[in-house]
């Protein structure tokens, strides 16, 4: 199954993903929990980047034959208790946790609610609490790629600024000072908000990684910026003119595909 861009230049997407041509053999699992919203978008992003998305269900007891996993955004189990708190104990999550911590270092990307699940799973440190301004926020957000050596950021330049959508209520990243200092010292702050901190996150942190760099979590949504005509650069989403392109998020997915075949970096 293939997806061609609905409008715009197909070649633009193809060129962006050129490093990942011929990677259809790479299988990227996309997890669906009860309440997940962005699983289809994540699967489509994998496909547009050249890989093969594999749907995974939260109640599955086996991870199956996947080379990496995306835990997408939305909600999980109504986010009762705390965002991600119950999802963390789903049967599939224990398999993902084991695989991420194993010698094979399964690449795992957690987006928004997926990031919350990764912190509740202790795959990533810290936690997310309600936005400091208490409102749901949805905007095109500029991020700086602070670390381009993780499994999910190899196709970006260090210090590159990208624009992708952000939409959350519980997006304020917090951790104690010691943890924050350690994250900074070890280069594990992978993304930082630029120009505007949308939720009060400590030290403008938008995303972090584990020490091995195979597990990455972030609040904004790269899977919503993978297609010409439907991303933040198109001016169609309410906050035009911020300098981003429509496909700034595609690099997450091409990065992991290139990593899986021992590619570019």
């Amino acid at each position: 199954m293939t997806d061609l861009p609905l409008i715009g230049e197909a070649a633009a997407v193809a060129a962006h993903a050129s490093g990942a041509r011929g990677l259809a053999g790479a299988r990227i699992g996309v997890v669906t929990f009860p309440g997940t919203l962005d699983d289809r978008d994540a699967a489509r992003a994998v496909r547009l980047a050249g890989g093969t998305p594999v749907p995974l269900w939260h109640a599955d007891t086996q991870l199956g034959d996947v080379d990496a996993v995306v835990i997408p955004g939305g909600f999980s189990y109504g986010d009762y208790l705390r965002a991600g708190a119950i999802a963390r104990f789903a049967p599939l999550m224990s398999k993902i946790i084991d695989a991420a911590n194993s010698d094979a270092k399964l690449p795992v990307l957690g987006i928004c609610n997926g990031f919350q699940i990764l912190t509740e799973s202790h795959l990533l440190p810290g936690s997310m609490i309600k936005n400091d301004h208490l409102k749901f926020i949805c905007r095109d957000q500029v991020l700086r790629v602070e670390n381009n050596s993780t499994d999910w950021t190899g196709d970006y330049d260090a210090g590159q600024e990208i624009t992708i959508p952000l939409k959350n209520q519980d997006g304020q990243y917090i951790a104690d000072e010691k943890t924050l200092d350690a994250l900074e010292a070890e280069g594990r702050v992978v993304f930082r908000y630029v120009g505007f901190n949308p939720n009060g996150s400590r030290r403008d942190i938008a995303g972090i990684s584990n020490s091995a760099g195979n597990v990455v979590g972030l609040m904004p949504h790269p899977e919503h910026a993978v297609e010409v005509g439907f991303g933040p650069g198109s001016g169609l989403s309410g906050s035009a003119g911020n300098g981003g392109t429509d496909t700034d998020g595609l690099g997450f997915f091409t990065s992991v595909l290139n990593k899986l075949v021992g590619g570019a970096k």
Partner: protein
Amino acid sequence: MPRIVVDVMPKPEILDPQGKAIVGALPRLGFNGFSAVRQGKRFELTVDGEVTDAILAQAREAAETLLSNPVIEDVVNVEVVEA
């Protein structure tokens, strides 16, 4: 039937955005005597039968592993309430 009550509060050093919103709303209703509000959670775990030490220990473990997140919250109370 006895219940085990578990109280969970945001850690003192963590800003509680919900508490902040509530303390802002109080004076608008004429409640002027309060300078700060922190909002926590109360869980009531019903036990069929007697609350043994083993069950209480389970409740304490559940409080630390599932009911609270030690990064942002403290379990401030675990107690048995009869009837």
